């Protein structure tokens, strides 16, 4: 069998592992070291924090400042499942309310349903998008440090008491000159935060017209009137209708075959128009009953 060696046997025998390694062209490099490129180990830059990177990105790709109307619209659009709640709370805050009563109103509006957003988060969202404003808000956190006298006044204005000499708790010093009376700051229990709707928030509430939206949909899609009538009539009793029951009523109707529609499509439209409401099951509201009347949106079709 012929053996095929990849190396020259003579070269292998002549190879001295202890001899210095010489590279081709090495002499040329040594002749003019200033002209040669030296490759140094790349020193990585000091890692920029996310904050610095974010600031650099903001400078490179500036984000336009939104108007208050745009902020409110964006917040509501970003939370479609909370739209009715958000608009209801803005509307409810036409007059100033304390945060505790706003929280109670949110809980009442939800009627025992589970919401992934806590009432405090809802309020914070509305304040952040400037649909609500706090009427007794604290000074901005970034305010410069004031002089000590002004600082004391600021604390007093914010509710904390002036420094008081503690005469009750500290042990009586043996020598009054050695242990002067201590001064203390005390936290005065803050009053409840109060909120009121902004003009732009109320404008968003006024602009919301679900009845007009539903009427426009029915004008464009009168073919679905029987489906809506079926849902409204079946939900109009004390036990209401479960989703499964509505599925059975609607999903196999010939009207829903082309284009293929399922019960959720119609339930969403009716809920948006406040025609039905979910309280453990779906129930028809007064608005829904009016739609079924002869001169109603659906009854007339």
């Amino acid at each position: 069998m012929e053996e095929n060696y990849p190396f020259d046997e003579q070269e292998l025998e002549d190879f001295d592992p202890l001899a210095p390694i010489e590279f081709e062209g090495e002499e040329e490099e040594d002749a003019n070291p200033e002209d040669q490129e030296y490759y140094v180990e790349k020193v990585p830059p000091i890692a920029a924090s996310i904050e610095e990177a974010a600031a650099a990105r903001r400078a490179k790709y500036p984000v336009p400042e939104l108007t208050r109307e745009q902020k409110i619209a964006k917040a509501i659009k970003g939370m479609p499942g909370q739209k009715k709640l958000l608009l209801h709370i803005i509307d409810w805050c036409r007059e100033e309310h304390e945060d505790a009563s706003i929280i109670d109103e949110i809980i009442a509006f939800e009627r025992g349903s589970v919401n992934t957003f806590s009432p405090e988060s809802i309020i914070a969202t509305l304040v952040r998008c400037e649909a609500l404003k706090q009427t007794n808000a604290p000074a901005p956190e970034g305010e410069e440090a004031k002089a000590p006298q002004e600082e004391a006044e600021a604390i007093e204005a914010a509710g904390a008491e002036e420094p008081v000499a503690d005469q009750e708790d500290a042990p009586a010093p043996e020598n009054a000159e050695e242990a002067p009376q201590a001064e203390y700051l005390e936290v005065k229990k803050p009053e409840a935060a109060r909120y009121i709707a902004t003009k732009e928030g109320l404008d968003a509430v006024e602009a919301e017209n679900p009845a007009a939206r539903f009427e426009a949909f029915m004008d464009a899609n009168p073919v679905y009137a029987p489906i809506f009538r079926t849902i409204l009539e079946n939900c109009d009793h004390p036990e209401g209708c479960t989703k499964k029951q509505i599925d059975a009523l609607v999903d196999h109707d010939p009207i829903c075959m082309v284009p293929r529609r399922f019960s959720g499509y119609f339930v969403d439209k009716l809920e948006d128009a406040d025609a039905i409401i979910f309280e453990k099951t779906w129930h028809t509201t007064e608005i829904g009953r009016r739609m079924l009347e002869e001169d109603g949106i659906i009854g007339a079709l």
Partner: protein
Amino acid sequence: MSEATVIQLLEQRNATYKFLSRLFKIEVDQEFYDFLCSMKYPRTGNANVDAGYQKIVKYLSTPRTGVLTDLAVDYTRTFIGAGNDGYSAAYPFESVYTSPKRLLMQGARDEVLVIYRANGIDKNDSWKEGEDHIALELEFLQIIGERLLEAYKADEDQKVDSLLATQYHFLHDHLLAWYPMMAADIERFSKTDFYKGLGELTMGFLETDLEFLADILGIEEDAENDPQTLA
């Protein structure tokens, strides 16, 4: 200084270490919030301590909704952060500030662990973080301070000197060697006056306590050997 005054001073030091340790350990819960609102915040004459207390009191005295959520969010933002590059929060670990790559569980953690065990102290099994967390370092000083108080009451002078030296060296070699950098990061990352105040308060208290210990032990603070100036 009378014995009663010394005892009161030592008790106040221990209470302050315990207070600071709790603030760094976990977020403020309802029980601790109620305690903070009922507490009295002393004026000490130290600019950082007084400024820190003022900020905390001002924050707690201001009307706001969801204060516990607000504080929890700022605690996470300040001490945990949202990035993984080692520069996105005021990480409360000595190893982060004293290791070249800002990693956890580095040499500093081993050093403090040796110190704890040499003093017969070990972390609770429920504590899953490193032993060089600032809450544990502050609690260590609190525990030594309590032993110091007992030794003082029992007139054990030698033990008192030894424990004072333990506190001084731990403060000088460890806590104050890295905390100033963390304090700067707290100022940078925190968005509430509460945790900004905590950063200043801790800085002022540790500096004051080091001066106190140096004064008692007769150690002259040498600026050349000050770890803060070396940093």
